[in-house]
């Protein structure tokens, strides 16, 4: 490959940020001419190239994050340097950088406030008020964001300030030489205090130090610095070697506090513990949420004291084939939305002759109204690590990728800490629990793209390509991540493995209905008294769930399954919440979103917001979705104030476009982009 690079050069900061992810350059070919030393004799005879260089392509996305975290945007010089280091054609690097909404290839302020304007939050007004309070001279960019997954505390906003926090800039240099920056043990090393900057890290977030006492966020928030907001980025390969950005999550966000947090994210009030999102926390009989609120999410010992790692021991005792048999017998269906039998997926992956196998955990939870995976990852992160280890063991994978959506800073912090601790204590690594099985987990951050929750788009995103879905067949179990057999599961699906193994498949299968077994998490938000995550056995009715959450008297409609799901009426509350029950009722369970709308909510505006969401999030690959989502939004705009005969022509048009998107789009995004609008017209009688 004869790559062509322009003359633009990275700044020192950008170079440091990239080098902290990729390690120092190995030869003068990897830096722009004249930037460090001249090319020497050795360089003139040898250059890293070809496959060896291109095999690092998957570090493109972490590299882009490093640039964005450090300077707040992706400049020409920074991007060119990153591409040069990875032997990625700069045009392709530019194509990837412009794909994600969290990156900007134009200069922007270091501080970006993302205000959720989706269904549960509807923060458009908040957006304007914050902008007005901050004013143009504040150096803060305010952006409208799709669902931030904080629906139980709406309205939500996320403040991200790029750059090393001022408190860390002195007295020592910002980026110490860190030869371990790419090694698998780097996180643990840094946390162990063996790195030169560990002492400094301790002052701000000592909870990440392994020797620090566990932080019981549920028993006294803020007592331990680790549980307090704001969070600094963690060391590890996804960020640079030290904290390079600050985040503050505000939910519920008010204009004044948000404006203040935007100017000084370090001083933002701390986030409530994850258990606050679980109204049932502490109740008996919960299987998936049992530990949330009881266990210290930063302590491996506490996790073990609450029954952690018994499932993995069972798995090692019965062997991989028996694990798959148990999962198959349990009747577990995927909880990400497609409801595919997990046992069959694992069996198909495990039996592939091609190697290596990969395990991918899809934590790119971006369906508007969904926040269950976030609560699990924040409140009980070790359960996901244990589940992934079991899944890897069963499917013959030795590396698991955890693809986490970019808008979840606290989940990232908790998981990075949990992975590091598990690694340091032998629960991950070359010899898990001394059983001779090697397994490790790599966390990859998404960067703002709903489409990357589609399984094959997620592979492309990890591999350093644009997150566009691939056409199937071939299916991931045959050719998945890096073209190898891959089992990809949602967070909730994976944590169901633990009760299956601890209680046994028959006992698990006895929960729920015959076709939908086990417990299910529901993300209840909107016009209810107690929004949050609810765990109910499959088969409970929609009415029972809403009663638990405190149904409003003037319920107008319920959105089931998120933006890709559909509406049901208040007189349909006896719909059983099972995969088959919702299907029979012409609805879908999707990812478990239950968004209640009362009769004060203007339905046409809600539909318009859903249409805007799909238009924004379409990857643009296939025509039905790329243009169809635009035409759908235009038609909904036209009829936002119209009803009856005035809207009939546009509704006819919507039906034709919708049918084509459903029939002819490549992936689930386009295929479901018309679901909610259709159900609103047909079931709720919108525009009548």
């Amino acid at each position: 490959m004869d790559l062509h690079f322009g003359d633009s050069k990275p700044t020192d900061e950008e170079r440091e940020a990239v080098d902290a992810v990729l390690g120092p350059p190995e030869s003068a070919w990897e830096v722009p001419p004249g930037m460090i030393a001249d090319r020497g004799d050795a360089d003139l005879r040898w250059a890293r190239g070809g496959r060896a260089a291109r095999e690092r392509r998957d570090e493109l996305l972490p590299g882009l994050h490093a640039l964005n975290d450090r300077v707040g945007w992706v400049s020409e010089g920074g991007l060119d340097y990153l591409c040069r280091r990875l032997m990625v054609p700069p045009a392709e690097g530019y194509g990837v950088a412009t794909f994600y909404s969290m990156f900007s290839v134009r200069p922007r302020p270091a501080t970006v406030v993302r205000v959720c304007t989706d269904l549960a939050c509807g923060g458009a007004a908040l957006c304007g008020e914050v902008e007005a309070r901050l004013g143009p001279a504040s150096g803060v960019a305010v952006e409208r964001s799709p669902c931030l997954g904080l629906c139980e505390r709406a309205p939500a906003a996320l403040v991200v300030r790029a750059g090393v926090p001022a408190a860390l800039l002195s007295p020592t240099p910002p980026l110490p030489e860190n030869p371990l920056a790419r090694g698998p043990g780097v996180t643990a090393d840094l946390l162990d205090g063996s790195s030169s900057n560990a002492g400094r890290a301790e002052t701000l977030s000592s909870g990440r130090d392994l020797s620090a006492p566990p932080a019981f966020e549920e028993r006294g928030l803020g007592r331990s610095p680790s549980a307090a907001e704001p969070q600094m980025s963690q060391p590890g390969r996804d960020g640079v070697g030290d904290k390079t950005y600050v985040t503050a999550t505000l939910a519920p966000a008010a204009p004044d506090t948000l404006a203040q947090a935007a100017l000084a994210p370090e001083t933002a009030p701390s986030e409530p513990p994850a258990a606050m999102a679980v109204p049932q926390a502490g109740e008996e009989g919960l299987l998936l949420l049992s530990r949330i609120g009881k266990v210290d999410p930063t302590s491996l010992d506490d996790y073990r004291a609450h029954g952690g790692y018994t499932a993995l021991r069972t798995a090692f005792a019965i062997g991989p084939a028996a694990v798959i048999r148990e999962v198959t017998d349990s009747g577990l269906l995927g909880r990400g939305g497609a409801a595919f039998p997990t046992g069959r997926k694992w069996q198909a992956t495990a039996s592939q002759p091609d190697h290596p196998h990969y395990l991918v955990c899809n934590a790119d939870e971006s369906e508007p109204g969904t926040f269950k995976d976030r609560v699990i990852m924040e409140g009980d992160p070790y359960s996901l690590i244990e589940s992934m280890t079991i899944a890897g063991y069963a499917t013959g994978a030795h590396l698991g990728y955890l693809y986490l959506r970019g808008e979840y800073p606290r989940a990232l912090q908790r998981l990075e800490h949990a992975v590091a601790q598990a690694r340091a204590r032998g629960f991950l690594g070359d010899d898990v629990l001394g059983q001779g099985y090697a397994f490790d987990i790599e966390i990859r951050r998404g960067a703002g793209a709903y489409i990357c929750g589609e399984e094959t788009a997620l592979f492309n995103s990890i591999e350093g390509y644009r997150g566009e879905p691939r056409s199937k067949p071939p299916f991931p179990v045959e050719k998945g991540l890096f073209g190898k057999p891959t089992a990809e599961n949602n967070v909730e699906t994976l944590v169901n493995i633990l009760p299956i193994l601890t209680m046994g498949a028959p006992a698990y299968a006895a929960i729920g209905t015959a076709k939908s077994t086990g417990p299910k998490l529901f993300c209840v938000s909107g016009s209810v008294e107690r929004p949050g995550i609810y765990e109910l056995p499959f088969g409970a009715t929609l009415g029972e769930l809403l009663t638990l959450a405190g149904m409003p008297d003037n319920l107008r409609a319920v959105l089931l399954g998120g933006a890709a799901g559909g509406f049901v009426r208040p007189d349909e509350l006896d719909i059983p919440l099972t995969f088959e029950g919702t299907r029979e009722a012409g609805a879908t369970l999707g990812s478990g979103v239950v968004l209640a709308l009362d009769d004060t909510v203007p339905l046409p505006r809600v539909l318009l917001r859903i249409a805007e969401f799909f238009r924004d999030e379409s990857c643009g690959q296939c025509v039905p979705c790329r243009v169809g989502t635009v035409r759908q939004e235009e038609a909904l705009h036209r009829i936002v104030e119209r009803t009856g005969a005035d809207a009939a022509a546009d509704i006819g048009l919507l039906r034709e476009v919708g049918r084509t998107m459903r029939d002819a789009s490549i992936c689930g995004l386009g295929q479901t982009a018309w679901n909610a609008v259709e159900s609103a017209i047909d079931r709720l009688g919108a525009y009548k």
Partner: protein
Amino acid sequence: MTAVPLGIPRRLVEFTLDGQDTRVPEGSTLLDACRAAGKDVPTLCEGDTLTPKNTCRVCVVEVEGARTLAPACSRRAEPGMTVLTDTERTRHSRKVVLELLASSVDMSTTPKVAGWLKEYDAKPDRFGPDAARLNEEPRVDNDLYVRDYDKCILCYKCVDACGDQWQNTFAISVVGRGFDARIAVEHDGPLTDSACVYCGNCIEVCPTGALSFKSEFDMRAAGTWDEERQTQTTTVCAYCGVGCNLTLHVQDNDIVKVTSPHDNPVTHGNLCIKGRFGYQHVQNRD
């Protein structure tokens, strides 16, 4: 005579195509099978020398038992499958996809599309006068070829031809997302600052005329472009020893553009800057 490589014998796959028992070599796509059976399935993003990207979705067919329609260009024939190419469902999807395209992109120079719009009764105007269009100016930043973004349907063929499928130059990529996605060089700059080597293989595969010779672009602007008056002569490029085939398109005794036959077993329609654009000396009669 050109030697035709026969390859290793392939097993035949039996399936039902529009009610007819059909046998095609293993690995054939449904589009191959349709063409072998003499059926006309419209396609835009499919290219005879490229791996199908199946983004345009005009070639969709119905596969019995499948929830959605399948792109004929990339779906392979499987034993026992039942495929219908001309049902109300496929006609509806093709019609709306053609409408979506024609309402957002200038398709005036896309071959065959006018016929398909008529055949499927597509009415692109029904999205109203305010329907979003690309509305972009052509980019003329070099003497050899023009990028007319208003005609681009994002078929990815130029990206694939520039990338690892043929040229390995990687000068262009799809950038942005959704309706705002465009084909661009790095940092969306002019071609002259990019990795482009002006081989013109992207023009060779462009299905809509969004990429065209500057000579063709200028003549169309002047109203002098007339394919009726053009002759095509296939010859051998004289620049080097490879011996690529050139097809010279000549109007009024002037070469107006150069293509290359895709069935050439060595070059498959690919040329370099010299073969593609280095013909001016022929017309220098002074």
